């Protein structure tokens, strides 16, 4: 608690921490929001490819202008990322090379070319170039307020675009063919959505770097997806998760030396993903597992009840007196291979539906016979009273004939 209070206090007093926290928050917000569309369109790795592809753009922008102003470098990154995205689209549409290969080629080749340019600039000995390599791994601590303003500006433009074209983007994310038949310019909208992903990437390069940017695109959206089936809620949640991860990552990394901000933010957002995968109400794995276990128990309970009932009838008991006859546990086990009969009988006994008799024999109580009849009726569409039941055939030794 103290650490958090101290953090809150520091945010107002410490320039670096405030800048870093703001930067990480804006990054998380924008990338979560824009990344939602990438994840829904199964283009999660586009962010990965675009962030690597942005490197030569950054260096070329520097070579051309000699400036390291964040907006200049961002524009360079935007241009290169955009070119990369168009190349991926061209290659996948025009040749038999699949999207994964096209993404991989653009990612690695652009990055390699950027590296060539970067080492070339560095060896030219210009003193001004130092700090360009922060784009590789991100150096959140080096953020200054003007960077944050640039991030906010570029991100704000992206958000505005999403608001303006909300309906179109929504349609494109879920049913692009339908969008095309309605006459929407699908190709153009595709390019616009890709551009937005590039925008998100460009914002993050300085903070978390090329490599980790892909997580910022995918993770908030993947986490948000688990909580809702509605696009508007998912987008808002993803933005919230992203911002939360940004703030908490900045907090945690400020607490200790040797915890770089970028990786810490990524671990925070990945923790959110893990939590959402496990505990989200409908899609959560824990919930699903509990539901499955419950269903399996219910099925087993019904099966044991019905088998007891059928055994009683096959022994010539009238349905009314089915409860009177007790059966060898062995016969039950033989009739239901693979079912944990013993534990289910204990449950049934505690519910007052079955009762143990002498010598490891079990019988239904009247209430149990009633329920067995009801549940059998559900499968046979007869009323419980006129139930025709195919009795289980038994040999004289009491073994079930299959």
């Amino acid at each position: 608690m103290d650490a958090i209070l101290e953090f809150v206090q520091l945010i107002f007093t410490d320039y670096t921490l405030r800048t870093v926290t703001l930067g990480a928050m804006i990054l998380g917000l924008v990338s979560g929001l824009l990344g939602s569309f990438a994840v829904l369109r199964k283009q999660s790795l586009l962010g990965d490819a675009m962030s690597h592809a942005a490197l030569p753009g950054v260096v070329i922008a520097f070579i051309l202008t000699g400036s390291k102003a964040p907006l200049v470098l961002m524009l360079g990154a935007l241009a290169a990322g955009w070119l990369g995205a168009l190349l991926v689209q061209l290659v996948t549409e025009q040749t038999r090379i699949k999207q994964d290969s096209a993404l991989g080629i653009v990612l690695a080749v652009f990055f390699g070319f950027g590296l060539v340019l970067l080492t070339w600039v560095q060896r030219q000995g210009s003193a001004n170039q130092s700090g360009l390599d922060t784009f590789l791994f991100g150096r959140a601590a080096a953020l200054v307020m003007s960077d944050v303003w640039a991030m906010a500006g570029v991100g704000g433009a992206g958000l505005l675009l999403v608001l303006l074209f909300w309906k179109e983007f929504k349609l494109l994310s879920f049913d692009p063919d339908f969008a095309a038949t309605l006459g929407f310019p699908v190709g153009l909208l595709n390019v616009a959505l890709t551009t937005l992903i590039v925008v998100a990437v460009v914002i993050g390069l300085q903070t978390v770097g090329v490599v980790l940017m892909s997580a910022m695109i995918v993770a908030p959206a993947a986490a948000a997806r688990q909580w809702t089936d509605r696009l508007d809620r998912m987008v808002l949640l993803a933005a919230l998760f992203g911002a939360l991860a940004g703030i908490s990552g900045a907090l945690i990394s400020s607490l200790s030396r040797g915890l770089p901000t970028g990786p810490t933010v990524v671990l925070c957002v990945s923790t959110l993903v893990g939590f959402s995968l496990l505990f989200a109400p409908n899609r959560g794995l824990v919930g699903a597992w509990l539901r499955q276990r419950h269903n399996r128990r219910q099925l087993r309970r019904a099966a044991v009840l019905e088998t007891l009932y059928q055994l009683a009838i096959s022994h010539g008991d009238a349905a009314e007196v089915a409860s009177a006859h007790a059966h060898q546990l062995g016969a039950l086990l033989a009739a239901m291979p693979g079912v944990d009969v013993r534990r289910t009988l204990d449950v049934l006994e505690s519910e007052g539906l079955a009762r143990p008799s002498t010598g490891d024999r079990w019988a239904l109580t009247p209430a149990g016979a009633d329920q067995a009849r009801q549940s059998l009726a559900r499968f046979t569409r007869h009323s419980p009273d006129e139930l025709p039941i195919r009795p289980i055939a038994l040999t004289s030794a009491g073994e079930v004939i299959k």
Partner: protein
Amino acid sequence: MTPQAEIQLIASIVAVACALPGVFLILRRVALMSDAISHSILLGIAVGFLFTGSTSHPLLVALATASGILTVSLVEGLINTRRVKEDAAIGLVFPVLFSIGVILISRYAGDVHLDVDAVLLGELAFAPFNRMAFFGLNLPQGVWVMGGILLLNLLLIGLFYKELKLATFDAGLAAALGFSPVLLHYGLMTVVSVTAVGAFDHVGSILVVALMIAPPASAYLLTNSLPRMLGLSALYGVAAAIGGYWLARTLDANIAGAMATMTGVFFLLTLLFAPEQGLIARALQRQRRRQRFAVEMLLVHLSRHENEPEAGTENSLAHLVEELKWQPDFAQSTVRSAQEEVFVERQNGLLLLTEEGRQVASRVLQR
């Protein structure tokens, strides 16, 4: 051997060792697993460094390979929950492992000579300094290590060629015949991990991806046969390695980056000029097909009006522009190519079918 030649030798060996498993990666549409694996081996390297304090201990290689395989199984596990799609699963897993690696390094090894840059980018220029002698041959360590990995890859691909081929092109049949697709998948991914671990020293983990994907993708544009694709990928890899070396020398820049750039240049050239799959060839094919269709249209049009009284007006060039809604240029070139094939003659400004043209028209109409 001069250091120059040795660098080129190592680069070529790395390129071929990467290209061979890369062929199966792109055919099986899991190219980006190489990206994920090559990033997350950083974790294994970091952990290994913390245990041994050395960057060249064999334990590092084992741990790095293990973290590559861990990546694959985490991705598969995530996909199997059916809560995220395959691409998102890849994008979620490797940044986590990579981040843990970066944090470990910067927390416990920040001041030592283990550098994240070095893992990601690699430096081939120093490779000749680190030497090892085997069988009386004193060669750079990289030649031995990568040579061994290359031989291993060749051996495995040779031994399991049939299984790999079957599982790649018809996974269902392979499974029905009793080859475990899971086992083959993990086997291939292990090979990719080992290769990436061996190569990261020299070319860095990101550029491993370029060497694994771009040469096979270029070869894929040139051939339909798997053995030829393997051979061509290796050639592309060697060409990129040697071309990259000289590019880097000319610019005084990072060798691995230049190699990746060259794989891209070769890919781009292939994309443009490949005889059947290339963009230019396909554009020409499309144009030829359009021209062919237009000529047939023209012949059919002429034959329908041939014996009618208004043939005189129907068969003029100006009328084609009007009735078939052709651009004047296009009509001209169509008529010209029909004339060249002697399907049509021009008399007094009218177009008349030749006997051959009439036959083509009736054949088209019967189609």
